[in-house]
């Protein structure tokens, strides 16, 4: 698996696919990477079925629900994913170890808000492995944390009326005991 980074100038090649984000940035990615995004794959397959005549494909696939920032991260993640898979084709255990190591490092550079954006993008692109990974990351980040911490982590504010939240807390009192330090 070669691992070239995407070039800003699309050069027509049969195994490259061009993706255009909602903020009008263009990414050229290898077919293997693009095919991990099921939404793109579906589009690509449909397009190929409709245009049997076009030999060299220079398809530009619009992604109106994905911005360039999360897409760039997803492409990097996807490439690494494919690379690790290719490097350990015959050893599943080694692959899992490498993947875990990469994912741990990956999360060090991701802000909580970015994580949400990545989930949205991965969900839209239907990129299963990434979606699984990001959901796991969110879950482990909020595991055994206080409600206040989780609110801050997600950047959300309570819209309960005075008293409503307290009532809920009383009802589920046991779950509010013994949380980790924020």
């Amino acid at each position, binding site marked *: 698996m070669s691992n070239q980074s995407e070039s800003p100038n699309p050069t027509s090649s049969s195994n490259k696919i061009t993706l255009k984000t*909602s*903020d*009008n940035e263009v990414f050229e990615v290898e077919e293997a990477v693009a095919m991990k995004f099921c*939404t793109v794959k579906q*589009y690509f397959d*449909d397009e190929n079925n*409709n245009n049997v005549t076009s030999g060299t494909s220079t398809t*530009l696939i*619009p*992604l*109106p*629900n994905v*911005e*360039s*920032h999360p897409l760039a991260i997803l492409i990097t993640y996807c490439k690494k994913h494919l690379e690790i898979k290719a490097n350990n084709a015959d050893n599943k255990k080694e692959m899992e170890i490498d993947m875990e190591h990469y994912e741990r490092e990956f999360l060090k550079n991701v*802000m909580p*808000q*970015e994580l*949400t*954006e990545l*989930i*949205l993008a991965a*969900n*839209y692109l*239907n990129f299963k492995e990434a*979606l699984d990974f990001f*959901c*796991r990351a*969110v*879950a*482990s980040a*909020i*595991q*055994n*944390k206080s*409600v206040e911490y*989780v*609110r801050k982590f*997600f*950047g*959300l*504010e*309570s*819209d*309960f009326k005075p008293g409503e*939240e307290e009532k*809920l*807390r009383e*009802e*589920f*009192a*046991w*779950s*509010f*005991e*013994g949380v980790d330090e924020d």
Partner: protein
Amino acid sequence: MEIVRRRRAIGETMNVTPLARKAKNQKLNDEQNTDRISNLPDAILQRILTLLETKDAVKTSTLSKRWQYLWMSITYLVFLEDDGPDKRKKRVQFMNFVERVLVLRDSSDLTLFVLSCDVLNDASCINAWISAAVMHKVQVLSIGLGSDEDSRCNSEEPIVLPHCLFISESLTYLSLTYFNLKSYILLKVPSSIWFSSLKTLKIRFAVFPDDRSMQQLFSGVPVLEDLTLDACCWWNVRSVCISAPMLKT
């Protein structure tokens, strides 16, 4: 034209709110800490909740109104009574919590149910919970039951697990552990047992009562592949024939 149509099609099928943000906003920083998580579709938020221990999933109900009822469709339930110094004090809270979660959650089938707690005087409650899990077609069931050293409860009397557990059609994995007991606990099983889907059975720290009931247990596991009997007492059992044609380990 084709692209416009497809663009709409992609946007619509995925059911994602378009993020109408300007390009200059794309660089994230601390000030721009807006609530985006709540924009995620229910299915994804529920997926995250499913990865949490149940108490953490339920706790998200107090984040905001958007989250209040989301946890109710989780299909993994994990209840672990903690072993802290004020354990007895928290007992009532723990019991209430499990009860409330089981009553309030929606009617979806359960994938996994893990319960680890002391029995004390609540055997009938615990049995009702296990029955509830079985009624919701639970596939993976792990039960750890114990009794506190200094509790005055009668630990000699075995908890008799509900009959419905032993004829569950959905169960593929069952783990039964009796822990932290002064004396081993007698594993009482009903006279009719048929685990039609059970592939893995683990029993730890139990006393097997007699030949006949053991024979019944091991004749009611037609597709069992993995059997673990750990630190169990066989002194009441002279011989038993395990008839599980698919058994691997």
